[in-house]
């Protein structure tokens, strides 16, 4: 399905972001990419749709080398790769519907999209997707009128409107609270299994990754240091990925989150009784 073959990326400043990354992802597989900030997670998924140009190596989507494509054929392949972003990256001043329909831009000529004359099938599908993510009644609102969780749902609908063969997901929950984070992760994973979509999900939240991913890849300083099932992700592996100190802090952070949530639930219960 997707094969990454010894991909490397060195930025113009001389920073080596990725070194010799090789991976294969099967159809329908949801892969979590974990690692500390600066490990190259974002760079790696952006190399796949060439929002960042890889310096070396090849990336094959359905046996087609994405790295070798010219701009036109790259655009055609980008249509097949849906992307979901950390800060949602919705066009704030456009309506929810326009944001979802913007997933169709690569398939339509400029004048049609300029006049907002989308084919009936695209519009129908956009409404179906909005219904799927639970925002059917928000279609005509402006994107900046929605809450964080709702915006990310629009982002998901936009990616799905592309009819993608692959989903790239960059820290989908980084700007959300813990509860909404779990809802959004559950939605993404459900959708991937519904459509039998493979996905690469950058995620800094290890417990979330353990809960939802089928396979986990650990990056450290631009290299793959772990690749396996969540059950194989032991203390010692996590210490390798994050370094001892950061890993202890992250565990503590997670416990605090759980505590404060339990506390909130208890208080709510007390109020109700």
């Amino acid at each position, binding site marked *: 399905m997707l094969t990454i073959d010894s991909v490397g990326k060195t930025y113009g400043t001389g920073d080596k972001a990725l070194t010799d990354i090789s991976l294969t992802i099967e159809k329908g597989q949801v892969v979590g990419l974990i690692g500390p900030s600066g490990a190259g997670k974002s760079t790696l998924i952006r190399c796949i*749709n060439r929002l960042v140009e890889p310096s070396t190596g090849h990336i094959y989507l359905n046996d087609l080398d994405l790295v070798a494509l010219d701009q036109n054929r790259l655009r055609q392949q980008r249509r097949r790769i849906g*992307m979901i*972003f950390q800060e949602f*990256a919705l066009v704030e*001043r456009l309506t929810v519907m326009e944001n979802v329909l*913007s997933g169709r*831009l690569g398939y339509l000529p400029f004048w049609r999209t300029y006049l907002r004359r989308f084919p009936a099938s695209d519009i129908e599908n956009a409404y179906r997707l909005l219904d799927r993510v639970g925002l059917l009644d928000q279609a005509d609102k402006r994107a900046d009128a929605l809450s964080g969780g709702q915006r990310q749902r629009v982002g998901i609908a936009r990616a799905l409107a592309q009819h993608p063969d692959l989903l790239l997901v960059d820290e989908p929950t980084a700007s959300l609270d813990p509860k909404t984070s779990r809802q959004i992760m559950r939605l993404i994973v459900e959708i991937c299994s519904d459509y039998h979509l493979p996905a690469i999900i950058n995620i800094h939240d290890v417990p979330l990754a353990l809960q939802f991913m089928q396979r986990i890849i650990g990056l450290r300083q631009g290299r793959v240091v772990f690749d396996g099932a969540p059950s194989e992700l032991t203390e010692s592996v996590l210490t390798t990925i994050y370094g001892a100190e950061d890993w202890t802090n992250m565990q503590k952070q997670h416990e605090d989150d759980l505590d404060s949530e339990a506390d909130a639930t208890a208080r709510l219960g007390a109020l109700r009784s």
Partner: protein
Amino acid sequence: MTSRYPTHWRKPPQILTHPVWRPIIWILAAVYLVLAIGSLEVNWVRVSEGLERGWRFVQGFLVPDFSSRWTDISIGLVESLTMTLTSTIVGILISVPIGIGAARNLSPAWMYMICRSIIAISRSLQEIIVAIFFVALFGFGPFAGFLTLSFATIGFLSKLLAEDIEDIDESQVEAIRATGAGFWQIINYAIQPQVMPRLVGLSLYRLDINFRESSVIGIVGAGGIGATLNTAIDRYEYDSAGAILIIIIMIVFAVEYSSSYIRRWLQ
């Protein structure tokens, strides 16, 4: 109850903190002021003549005469307003592509250089100089004024539009690019929504600048209400000149208020 803290505070000097330099600079400034005043040669006869003329002007202003030159005034006004509106629209139409070309985050280096050069040329020439040039080329009248104002609008709008495009949220562009959208689709979906309110605001602001400029460039022969005003002053018809000034002020007020209202409404 006495507090242990001081009740008096003064802001310490931020620049020139050195205790010697501050009095030296004060003394130099005082010496310069005395010398400068001493070098003035005031011709009191001319001052009194000027005051008298100024007083007549003020009197004309206090009893403005709208009626005796009304035909000239209305022709001048219509010319000025036409010039203002057409030049603003033409200016916007030309500015948008140049502004896109002059945005570093959208254009290749060669395009950027060309568009920035056009902006630099347009901005470096003051309206009156451009007007004199166009009057020499195309003769007296509002056409020269129209060209002048269009030319000035291009420098103003393209520069500010380009800067606004450079300040946009790149993640929205990245997201639209990731869908496989083409260049113009990216402009239409990711950039236009982000810069549109400001572009409309700037265009309205330019409309109001263009009206004011249209009355100035009329004085060098580029038609409009400025030409009428110039004629009135040359004929010592200060009452008509006063009427024209009042009309200009009223129109500038009206444009100013309505444009700021529209800009607030757009946000």
